[in-house]
């Protein structure tokens, strides 16, 4: 059994998650698109956090060089009506090594007053969204939490209700995987709360 498999087995045992033979969610978010259909392997299904169910697994793919992410996927369907796309990506993260395109789909950079958030993440959204809702979502408490609490290489992508949290670790241990699950569940809960308000 590899170190990655052991880490996932330990996480499954600690949190009572179901081990899956593999899991292919489809191309739901930009990171999953970069993986060109590569699924999560190994993969676990169950509660990522309190009231948040999902799948956590390793996403590995080749784009000139090998990329490995540990990713946790859950759903917040209500978010689609408020913000179809919100990406909060660690600055400097690379998800491919074979892109030379000069034009991309239009998006808006979300401006926040938080230096800590801006230094650590690049936050972008789909254009034509309600800026007030987004400002409420990125409340001072969430901004503070994002700047200090999640794993250092944590990023998340919300696309049409699919929320993918991820870290860049090649060699995860059960503790870092648990932190990924907790961080993703925290973001999911925060988005859900804002949708309900």
């Amino acid at each position, binding site marked *: 059994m590899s170190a990655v498999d052991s880490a996932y087995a330990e996480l499954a045992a600690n949190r009572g998650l179901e081990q899956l033979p593999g899991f292919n969610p489809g191309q739901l978010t930009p990171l999953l698109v970069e993986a060109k259909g590569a699924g999560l392997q190994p993969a676990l299904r169950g509660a990522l956090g309190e009231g948040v169910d999902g799948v956590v697994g390793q996403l590995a793919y080749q784009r000139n060089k090998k990329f490995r992410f540990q990713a946790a996927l859950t759903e917040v369907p209500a978010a689609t009506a408020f913000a179809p796309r919100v990406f909060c990506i660690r600055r400097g993260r690379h998800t491919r090594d074979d892109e030379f395109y000069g*034009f991309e*789909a*239009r998006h808006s950079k979300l401006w926040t007053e938080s230096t800590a958030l801006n230094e650590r993440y690049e936050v972008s959204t789909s*254009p034509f969204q309600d800026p007030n809702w987004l400002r409420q979502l990125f409340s001072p408490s969430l901004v503070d939490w994002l700047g200090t609490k999640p794993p250092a290489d944590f990023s998340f992508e919300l696309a*049409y209700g699919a929320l993918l949290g991820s870290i860049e670790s090649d060699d995860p241990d059960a503790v870092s995987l648990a932190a990924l699950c907790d961080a993703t569940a925290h973001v999911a809960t925060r988005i859900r709360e804002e949708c309900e308000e």
Partner: protein
Amino acid sequence: MQLNKTGIGLIAFFGLAGAAFAVVPFLIGVPGEVAAIFASVGVIWVIVAAGLYWYARRQQRKAAHQDWVFQQGLRGTATVLRASSHAEVNEMPLMSLRLELEVPGFGTSEVKRREIMPVFAASRMQPGLVLPVYVNPKDADDFVLVW
């Protein structure tokens, strides 16, 4: 579509390197035929840079107009009747959409729309999907589809 950092780099590279290729060989006294070859390559590169710049400016103007329609337009809905794609631009599907627009004051109409979308967005474009639209109050054919 919008210009990204790679695009700015491409414009700068082709523009500056093209200009250098076109001018420097003559300045340093490279023999005529060789200088002409460099100059031809340089001119082509400058044209490429100018074309990219022109496209970027066009997209910028389009974005500014879309922002205006979003802020001043009438909000309605667009129901996807049909969605297909037969081409890609920069690994993004060029989606051909047939939509039913329902906008207060304009009633219901069926329109076609082509949009370049990332794969994760394109895969959501299924018949029956309802998306918000903002329509220019003076021109029902001028609308922003929110996807």
